[in-house]
């Protein structure tokens, strides 16, 4: 901006960014208004413009698979993974494979859980970890949960290792990082299903396919965190390593990686959470376990049983999250001189002791070994009863809400989105792009959505866009006030943040349970699930943004005689806006993921097509659809980050 004004010294600037934006916006409006008189080629992308991306991708895939013989490589890798899966499967739930010593009695695993939790943080975490296993066993879900865990146990180490190695390579080589970065961006905005289709083609269905798709899906955050960690190692620590005469390898092994420990462990935390989310969803490609059960039960509308499984998944998620986070933040502590071996290693000894005791007891008390379906508790009946009662109670409300939303909100908006000529939509996005980031951003927006237009999935994409727009707007209408309310005092904020953190660890699938319970299987349920999922980051970042406003500014406002409302509107919100927009960004990303997942309860958008591509293992189509979703996300991400960066600079926050 400044150099432009320098060129036009003296003259007032006529074509500012905002004005160009408005001009393009006017053009977009004209295109929209003139819908009926526009040539067909501007309303919908004409046939000749649509490029057969799917066929091209398929051709490449077939070439890679058959001619390059990649199939043998992937199958070989998959066999290796399968062998490992069999080992863990045998140990955890007694699948009849080598080493044929399982299943380990549930009490042994639960007691190890107790000890790990205690060692990492204390008795609270100990209760959570141990309690989770006890709940799983008592509710008779041991086998399914172990099927799920056995995959995570195999997949997570692979992801961590791959991620670390890739992170180190990216840190070593700028070129590699430059190549990797856009790939990671796309990978992190591709919906889960887009990963599954190629895996099904290369590996087939079942646990090993589930494990491999989980490995691929969870690698990107590990790469990012390793790179970040290695970058953040203080300069002087590295110099001191040099001055101690370290070779390059010694420096990496003894100085850089251990010093980057915290970031690397945060990466491990993210890997494990991603693994859990993916393993649950991998039920769509025949992965047995909790996800598959949940899917079956939801489709059969068995609310009570699905709530039970839902609780298990949530407990597992929270437990894994808390344990890995505790591990990441745990700092080493010394023992006083002369501390005995037993005290130094008390947790190890306690773990071994308890496990042995349980192992022995399990030989005599069968219930301590395994709890069969017949002995298990269930709370599905009372849950069903309560749910039924509740549904009947609020039925008039939900009925009305459903009717109102569908007839007066969803259908009109959807029709409006579908009515818009594609040229008008593109112009609109270009206008937004130009207003925010000038020509570059306008071109970015045009490229992303232009590619969607010529992929031939315009109408489906618009339905996805409409669902996301509606859901994010409703989520914002709920999330902002909640966030503002939550930010007013420290205590409330910390509780609200804790709740948000916990909700964010839930695999997305879980959010479908309550909405299906309330609304059944339709558009409203989809929007409801997306709203729930998308509101969490909004609340969270609103609170964080408002809490981060410097104390001195608020004191200054107070001393200027501002009321609380004035302080909020004139000081806190403007200062917090960049952070809040990060929340909006995440919210859109989450919505896109959720819309696609929700496809199986009935939508007509890209998600549904993706499910079809999955069942017919059409790699090309699946990837094109996945990329379409990713492009939407990336465009929003580009706009929001560009805007937030400019705003932060203007506010002097960076």
């Amino acid at each position, binding site marked *: 901006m400044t150099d432009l004004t320098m060129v036009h010294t003296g003259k007032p600037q006529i074509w500012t960014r905002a004005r160009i934006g408005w001009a393009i916006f006017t053009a977009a409006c004209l295109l929209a208004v003139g819908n009926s008189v526009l040539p067909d080629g501007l309303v919908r992308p004409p046939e000749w413009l649509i490029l057969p991306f799917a066929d091209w991708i398929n051709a490449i895939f077939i070439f890679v698979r058959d001619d390059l013989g990649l199939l043998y490589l992937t199958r070989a890798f998959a066999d290796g993974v399968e062998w490992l899966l069999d080992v863990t499967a045998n140990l955890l739930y007694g699948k009849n494979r080598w080493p044929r010593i399982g299943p380990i009695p549930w009490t042994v695993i639960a007691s190890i859980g107790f000890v790990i939790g205690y060692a990492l943080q204390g008795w609270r975490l100990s209760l959570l970890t141990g309690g989770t296993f006890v709940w799983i066993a008592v509710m008779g879900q041991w086998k399914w949960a172990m099927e799920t865990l056995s995959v995570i146990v195999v997949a997570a180490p692979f992801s961590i290792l791959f991620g670390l190695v890739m992170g180190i390579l990216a840190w070593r080589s700028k070129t590699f990082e430059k190549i990797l970065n856009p790939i990671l961006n796309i990978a992190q905005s591709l919906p889960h299903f887009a990963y599954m289709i190629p895996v099904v083609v290369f590996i087939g269905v079942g646990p090993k396919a589930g494990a491999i798709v989980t490995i691929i899906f969870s690698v990107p955050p590990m790469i990012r965190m390793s790179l970040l960690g290695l970058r953040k190692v*203080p300069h*002087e*620590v590295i*110099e*001191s*390593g*040099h*001055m*101690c*005469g*370290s*070779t390059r390898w*010694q420096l990496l092994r*003894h*100085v850089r990686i*251990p*010093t980057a*420990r915290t970031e690397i462990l945060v990466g491990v935390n993210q890997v494990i959470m991603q693994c859990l989310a993916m393993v649950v969803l991998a039920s769509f490609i025949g992965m047995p376990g909790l996800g598959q059960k949940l899917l079956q039960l939801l489709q059969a509308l068995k609310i009570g049983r699905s709530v039970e499984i839902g609780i298990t998944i949530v407990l597992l998620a929270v437990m894994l999250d808390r344990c890995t986070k505790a591990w990441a933040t745990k*700092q*080493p*502590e*010394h*023992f006083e*001189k002369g501390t005995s071996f037993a005290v130094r290693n008390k947790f190890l000894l306690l773990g071994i002791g308890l496990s042995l005791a349980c192992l022995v007891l399990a030989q005599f008390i069968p219930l301590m070994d395994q709890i069969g379906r017949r002995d298990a508790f269930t709370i599905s009946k009372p849950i069903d009863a309560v749910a039924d009662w509740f549904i009947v109670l609020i039925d008039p409300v939900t009925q009305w809400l459903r009717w109102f939303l569908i007839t007066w909100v969803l259908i009109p908006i959807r029709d409006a989105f579908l009515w818009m000529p594609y040229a008008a939509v593109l112009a609109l996005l270009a206008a937004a792009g130009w207003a925010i980031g000038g020509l570059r951003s306008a071109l970015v927006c045009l490229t992303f959505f232009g590619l969607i237009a010529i992929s031939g999935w315009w109408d489906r994409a618009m339905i996805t866009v409409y669902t996301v727009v509606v859901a994010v707007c409703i989520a914002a209408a709920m999330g902002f006030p909640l966030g503002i309310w939550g930010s007013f005092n420290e205590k409330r904020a910390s509780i609200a943040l804790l709740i948000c953190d916990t909700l964010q660890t839930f695999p997305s699938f879980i959010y479908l349970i309550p909405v299906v319970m309330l609304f059944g299987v339709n558009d409203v349920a989809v929007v409801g699930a997306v709203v729930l999922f998308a509101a969490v980051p909004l609340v969270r970042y609103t609170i964080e943004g408002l809490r981060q406003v410097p104390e001195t500014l608020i004191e200054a406002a107070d001393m200027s005689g501002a009321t609380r409302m004035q302080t909020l509107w004139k000081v806190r919100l403007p200062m917090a806006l960049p952070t809040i927009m990060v929340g909006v960004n995440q919210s859109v990303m989450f919505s896109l993921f959720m819309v696609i997942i929700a496809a199986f309860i009935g939508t007509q958008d890209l998600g549904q097509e993706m499910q079809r591509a999955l069942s017919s293992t059409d790699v090309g189509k699946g990837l094109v659809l996945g990329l379409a979703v990713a492009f939407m996300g990336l465009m929003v991400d580009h706009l929001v980050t560009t805007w937030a960066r400019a705003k932060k600079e203007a506010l002097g926050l960076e």
Partner: protein
Amino acid sequence: MTAASPVISCKNVWKLFGAQPEQYLKSLTGNPGFDEIRQAGYIAAVRDVSLDIAKGEMLVIMGLSGSGKSTFVRCLSRLIDITGGEVQVEGQNIGAMSEKELIDLRRNKMGMVFQSFGLLPHRTVLDNVAFPLEMRGQDRHERRARALEVIELVGLSGREDYFPRELSGGQQQRVGIARSLAIEPDIWFLDEPFSALDPLIRREMQDEFLRLQEMLGKTIVFITHDFDEALRLADRIAIMKDGVVEQCATPDQIVLNPATEYVAKFTEEIEKSRVVHAGVLAREVNGYSLTGAPVGERQTISELARLLVNDSRDFLPVANNAGTLVGAMSRQEALNVLLGEGS
């Protein structure tokens, strides 16, 4: 002070940061100023520095932040590759060394202490101190024995099993010092070792440092931005500004004869009598008749103040530690140092 051959010898050392510093340096003619170089898009961290450091000497490099002193010391240990000139350590050009030779040099000859300590957070005090020994592949027992020895030397016995974050700043720096001494280096680099500490601890650490130096007698390059610290510790001080050494001389000479205006500004506030030694003021004895008890050459003028005021001799004999006469000091000149030149 000067031994036959210097331990470290710098000839016309340049360090420029920018796009293509080597080519730019070649294109330079004459001696452009800092701002001129910046106009061309380069930052001159070290400009044409030539220095020799003798065996057992403590050279303090003094300068404000951004004066290039930290960059310069990194050039001496080749943590940074220089743009032009040559650095020789014990006669070898370190710029021409292979990676392996450089690592060998650091493993056997050099130790360095850092401003923010540079300790490895995941290792105990013992393991931190033993780290350089581990790097050169000494076995565990030897490592442990030597590390314990140095830990005792810096006064941290009993805290071997602590982790760095469990120690105070002063204690952490003691670990840093112990680590840099573990390999018994000949050359010891200290990059603002006490700057991150609070003033009381800083004083204590300086005393500790002087004690160690008296015991060990290493060749030292010490970086500081604190002029008092420099005066207190140095055999010689090099004052840097914008990458150039403005003056390199003993504390006495810097205080008595500042070479540039910049140096003079630093010395203005300093009480000269605390810095200047009798030995520096001593002239040749020729022609004077000296009587009475001599003063020691290492005594500062401020230590001699009472004597100078009460004595009636015009010239005082100055003797070294062995009691040999080294010269005569004019009482008037000494009083001028003590009271200022004035009326």
